[in-house]
């Protein structure tokens, strides 16, 4: 009898652990698809056109899918920082000004960034997700 009771308890623990794992997995998929949805409607940032042409790119939002090469500078508040991001088919580096209260960006992270071209043709990121 005590043996049966132990076996029942173990099954119960396994079921609970399985349920938790399932919920975590569903949550991750949901969050990920939510993040993807936020950026999926954006056109890819025209890296070559930006670098090579002197015209100003339209004010619309673009997507930069790239890797943080370096965090170059931060302002005093720590909310505004300048990063170099490697992106595009030629792996060019772009300076991106990030203004966000999200958790800080670190070197080597892969990011999806919502950006637009701002003052003095600087690239400004208004939202990002770490991949």
């Amino acid at each position, binding site marked *: 009898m005590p043996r049966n009771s132990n076996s029942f308890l173990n099954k119960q623990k396994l079921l609970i652990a399985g349920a938790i794992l399932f919920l975590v997995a569903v949550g991750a998929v949901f969050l990920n698809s939510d993040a993807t949805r936020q950026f999926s409607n954006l056109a890819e940032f025209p890296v070559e056109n930006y670098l090579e042409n002197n015209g100003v790119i339209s004010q619309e939002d673009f997507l930069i899918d790239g890797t943080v090469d370096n965090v170059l500078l931060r*302002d005093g508040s720590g909310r*505004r920082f*300048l990063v170099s991001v490697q992106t595009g088919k030629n792996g060019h580096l772009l300076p991106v000004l990030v203004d966000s209260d999200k958790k800080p960006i670190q070197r080597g992270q892969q990011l999806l960034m919502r950006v637009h071209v701002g003052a003095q043709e600087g690239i400004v990121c208004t939202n990002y997700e770490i991949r």
Partner: protein
Amino acid sequence: MHSLMEIAVRRAPLDSDVAKKIETIQDNATNNQGLYEELKRIVSAGDHRAAFDRMNEFAPLAQEAKTDPKLKSDYESLLELEKSLRAANEKSDSLERRGNHSEAWIVLETLPDSLAKDPRALERKARLAGQCPKFIGSHTKAVANEQANRPAKALAWYLNALAESPGNEEIVGKIQTLGNSMLKN
């Protein structure tokens, strides 16, 4: 000088030593006049290489050129130009020997306009260009954008230049300056 010679001849018309001395003085005067004209030609042509190479010949003349202070100062400026070029070439050569082609190229790229077209600098630059074409492409575009007051694009190209020449102090300085101004805007 003429009157001195006449006096000497009058005092010792048959003295062979005096006659020889007179001849030497006359030859020197003629040669100096020729050299003086040559110095004027070199200075007006701005030929700093010849000015430097023939420094030993010209130095006494230039020192004596009290009647033409402008010629003296122009000649000294030419010598300084040539010294700058030789120093730059030596620095570039030493960087090149250490395999630092991009920095060797920058030394020549940042020469003043008066030296930038010197054939020795151009020849060395052309040789170095073959060693680091990507760096030179990025650096050239960065400078062009900076001069056209497009700081963000200049910064982008300086970042790409730095990727080709890690730790390059000149580029790091540019990134710092342009990055700070971007952060403040």
